[in-house]
């Protein structure tokens, strides 16, 4: 159990609740498949594959956030910034499914719960915050860095709030009240979110410096020139 990493193991949330969330997760992921297909052309395929592999690797890197407590990247903010929300959800879902089925990380019965929190909530919330922030901030690389950082922090806290909803419905607090679980979960995930923000902002800035056209959140922004390189290579 010591290597479970921010993923809900089986047994923590009751089976009926887990199944309901699995059904909801399946419906949303299905909708994302339909939506992602619309914007997906062959040029994006290897980039989406790379983003997924990168998120898998980054999730293995637990960083300390407090004495005896660690956290790791969820990846929703990174996927959203680079690929947009629909394709982003699919990337993180692939990671979570592989982890549950092959690496014993996150329960199989908890798969729907984990997909809802880490793939769906984190990616969509990050996307919403980034889009809103870019309306206010200047469309410079600095503006993008700040927007991605903010989106990352909020996305991780929102994902942990998703767990709290699931725990309130189908979990059983032992030895502590639901209120203290809530306070502790939100508190530690603010710290994890800051870590997520630093890593994601660094990664997105690195991509924006080398290939701004590959950052979905920059589409339409002055610093991106979407038709430049990919169009050249395609020709």
């Amino acid at each position: 159990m010591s290597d479970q990493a921010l993923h809900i193991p089986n047994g923590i949330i009751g089976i009926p609740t887990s199944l309901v969330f699995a059904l909801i997760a399946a419906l949303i992921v299905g909708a994302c498949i339909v939506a992602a297909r619309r914007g997906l052309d062959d040029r994006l395929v290897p980039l989406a594959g790379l983003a997924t592999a990168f998120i898998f690797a980054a999730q293995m890197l637990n960083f300390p956030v407090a004495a005896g407590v660690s956290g790791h990247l969820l990846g929703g903010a990174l996927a959203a910034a680079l690929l947009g929300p629909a394709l982003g959800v699919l990337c993180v879902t692939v990671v979570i499914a592989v982890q549950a089925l092959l690496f014993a990380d996150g329960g199989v019965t908890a798969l729907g719960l984990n997909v809802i929190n880490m793939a769906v909530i984190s990616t969509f919330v990050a996307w919403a915050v980034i889009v809103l922030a870019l309306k206010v901030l200047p469309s410079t690389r600095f503006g993008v860095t700040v927007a991605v950082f903010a989106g990352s922090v909020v996305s991780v806290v929102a994902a942990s709030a998703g767990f709290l909803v699931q725990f309130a419905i189908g979990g059983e607090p032992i030895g502590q009240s639901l209120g203290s679980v809530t306070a502790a979960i939100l508190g530690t995930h603010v710290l994890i979110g800051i870590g997520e923000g630093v890593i994601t902002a660094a990664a997105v800035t690195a991509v924006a410096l080398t290939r701004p056209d590959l950052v979905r959140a920059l589409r339409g922004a002055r610093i991106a020139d979407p038709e430049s390189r990919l169009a050249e290579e395609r020709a």
Partner: protein
Amino acid sequence: MQTPTIKTSRFIIAGVIVALLMAGGVALFASSSPDGLESVMLEGCTTTEEGDIDGDCVAQQAGEHEIGGPLADYGLSFVDNASVGGSLAGIFGVLLVLALATGLFWLLARGRRGRSEGA
């Protein structure tokens, strides 16, 4: 602003190398402390040196993983050296996820292409 200077193929290869280094190397030095979720679920319990959980806490409800398998907890069950096993498991995982995700997205893009050509 400046025009991008890196070809897509080089960008992908560089990204894969970074991911392999992270999963196969840097991951060995990652924090082994319980994470944010686990530490809250362990509130009220103490963990013994053997990894047993004593006391009253939410984490006691957690069951054994349903599948487990040779790659459980990012190691290789048949490799005695934990560092070597962890490194190989990480490298295998990155390559597997890369192949799986690229394949699935390729199928998705192909399905779109097929449909639009048929219409």
